[in-house]
């Protein structure tokens, strides 16, 4: 059985360049806190748009962060689960995918036309260099585990590729899905 990482993140990239500025995300995230729009114990919003290819605008929560992430020059929604991860890797992945899709769909709804996500792919990062060092052996076994787990979790075939082989970087994979992840996860089933 695969170890549950200390932290796990799923990022959904935009399908095309956004028609809004990162600063426009700030009031949306602030509103999410006011109205408790997304799950979690939401705390604050922090602005890192001045940093090149950084975490952008981050909605900090107790157990997870939601980021309008600008990493690798690609804007997207990144859900970073920090605490209270479920006790199996499958459940943790499921949770991260659900929450990332939920937040991305919420953004599309609040900025119609300005934000369009590519729900056919996602990036999975293991923020745990102790249990998941970015080494060839670990990468290979993790990729195998993901290949087994994700079709069942997402209800579609997936193609996985390792994002970096630099041992300093987080172990991360690009996951291309056979069907739209948004269709697979109705919002109504995810809240709470």
């Amino acid at each position, binding site marked *: 059985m695969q*170890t549950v990482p*200390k*932290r796990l993140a799923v990022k959904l990239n935009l399908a095309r360049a956004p028609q809004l500025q990162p*600063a426009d995300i*700030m*009031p949306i995230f*602030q509103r999410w*806190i*006011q109205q408790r729009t997304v799950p979690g*114990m939401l*705390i*604050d*919003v*922090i*602005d*890192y*748009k*001045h*940093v*090149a*290819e*950084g*975490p952008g605008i*981050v909605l*900090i929560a*107790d157990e997870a*962060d939601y980021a309008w992430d600008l*990493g*690798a020059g690609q804007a997207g929604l990144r859900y970073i689960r*920090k*605490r*209270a991860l479920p006790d199996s890797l499958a459940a943790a992945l499921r949770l991260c995918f659900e929450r990332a899709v939920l937040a991305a769909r919420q953004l599309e709804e609040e900025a119609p036309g300005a934000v369009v996500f590519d729900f056919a792919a996602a990036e999975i990062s293991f*923020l*745990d*260099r*102790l*249990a998941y060092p970015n080494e060839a052996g670990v990468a290979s076994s993790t990729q195998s585990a993901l290949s087994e787990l994700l079709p069942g979790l997402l209800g579609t075939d997936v193609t996985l590729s390792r994002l970096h082989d*630099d041992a*300093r*970087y*987080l172990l991360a994979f690009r996951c291309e899905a056979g069907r739209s992840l948004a269709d697979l996860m109705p919002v109504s089933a995810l809240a709470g």
Partner: protein
Amino acid sequence: MTSWKERLQDEIPLEMAKLIDTYEAQMSLRQQGKMDEKVFAEARLRKGVYGQRYDNGQRHDGVRTQALAYPSDDIVKGPDTLWDAPGMQRIKIPYGGLSARQLEVLSELADEYADGILHITTRQDIQLHYVHIDDTPDLMRRLAAVGITTQEACGNSVRNITACALAGVCHDEAFDVSPYADAMTQFLLAHDDVQDFGRKFKVAFSGCAGHACGLVKMHDLGLLAQSREVAGEIQRGFTVFVGGGLGTVPHQAKALADFVTPEELLPLTQAIARVFARLGEKKNRNRARLKFLVAKLGIDEFRRLVEAELEALPHDPRHTAYLESVDDFVYKPAKAGLRLNGAPLPEGFDDWYRSNIYRQAQAGYSVVTLHTPLGDFTAQQGFELADIARKYVGDNIRLTVEQNIVLRWVADADLPALCRDLRKIGLGDAHAGTIVDITTCPGTDTCKLGIASSRGLTAELRTRLIERINLLPDAVRELKIKVSGCFNSCGQHHVADIGFFGNSRRSGNHKLPHFQVVLGGQWQQNAGSYGLAVGAVPAKAVPEVLAALTERYVAERAEDENFQSWVKQLGRKEIKAMLKPFMQLPTFEENPAFFSDWGDSRVYTIEDIGVGECAGEVVSLFSMEISKAESTHFEALLALDDGDWRRADENAYRAMVLAARALVRTKNLDVGDDSDRIVNEFRERFYDTELVYDRFAKGKFARYLFKRHAGQPTRLDEDYAHQVIDETQLFIENIHSAEQRINGVIVG
């Protein structure tokens, strides 16, 4: 699965590992309610583990104050500071010096424990934000494995020792102060004489009088390098300044000694620390910095006390041992120094060269400044910068007090290629050290004391100024802007040409974020003079205020007249009149934008301001020391649970010695670390005199210590481990009782 503790056990120096283990045990005790919250708060702060805004469990969302229901809401890590609330980890980087590997590890930690951002402070530290306290022991272990400590990064002790980022390569320095800053860092770290201060103590070194980089005149202790000729030989030394500081009431440091030799440097510092610990204010934290003691006593009396302390100081070989290795403090450039050789230059290279390059004293080499906006860079940039450093300069990386990074020992011939490589990672922007390179504290983003958004304002000003930078006259380009989120001066607004610090005003039923304008401070001459507050303007009016000030300065200044001189010439009254139109407050209905802060869409409130932890918690030296005994006793219990009888016994014995030491140090600060001496003094001072005697058990508990100190146990099994741990617990309780009887109050 192994833990970081197991993985790194052979890579962490033993003393450092013990300090981290003790802290981790203190965390457990606090979570079980077995350690006083104030004592734990100070212990945590002395590990650089700091509170953050909203950690009291409340946040105003622009409409109402929401309760933040953290999972372990009844456990606190300090007064009004909830255990699960994210916090800040401050990491000491002595004189800002970093190796490529250290930069990588810091970046890994930002990735895994924070929000992916590394923040450079105005005192050459690195800060990670939104860190959970449970992650901090492993974070510290990973740092310790590469030679970095967080010990005393916050709290009432000696903070990170700073020095010019150009030390060793500067044209104007008397000599390289780096080895002296390094020696003082090692000497004072966790030193007994810096554990009983009423407030923090900041030290800075500077290589010359003229430049700003060392800022010695705004520090508790400032060391300014000097050289003099004695019998035909050049002798090194320092002019020593004491009692400087910014804060609410800035003080210029006073000269304590004109010339102190390297042999005298550490003992003098120790003597100053002792005087501060003994006579510094402990109760009123607003007057507990050294500057108030120096002002109260006068510099002459303070000098007399320090000299008397110096006379009585016990001999310590460490005072001079470091001198043998001063000359070993050499830099290893990655490449030979070669001049620019006509290679093609990237576009914009000249601008970058003009603002970001300093030609070193060593021919063929330059220092390159990387402008990090708001002092922030990402973990990814950290990894890539480590690669760039290895390629061009090796480990010659330093952080600056202007929240930038410098690469030293860059071969001039490499500058075009380096410029290209830095641009690829977003760190190749020009204009370092110009008006766009604004210093800022965290402000309301993360600081509990923040009143207005210093980072929001800085980001806004920076964006506007960059758009116009090539249109600005040189006199304006060269101005320094520094922004603090409140009057506490973490953004160093007093020493800027144009400084701002946050406050608030009221219009109707609403508050508006404001910034007080502070003009004419002097950055050069080691922060040679402080600016004057001339009036508060709404935060949203600051860009227009800045434009008005700079335009008028350019229009009216005499040739070569600098900003300070122009401000002085213009006068406070005239400046106030100039600002007056900007001080008019709209109603909420007229201009709601004025009622939100920069970079924050919420309607402004001051309800989120909390109690800061800058001042630490004032707890007695005994409380801090006995807490170490208690946490070591807890480690013994853990060893018992693990079935490791030997470790249980060793920790129990160590806990008893630490408890005895805590009591002995209330009478003799110089007892040291030797267990024989500690036990002997304990026996003489407290056992033979019956001061430690329990009413009924008499000297029984003390004899547990004597018995164990007399020799190793003859058997090591579970029964014995249980027994020695129980005896240790009773002994610690006995010490607590005795201390209360003898000295009165435990927690101040």
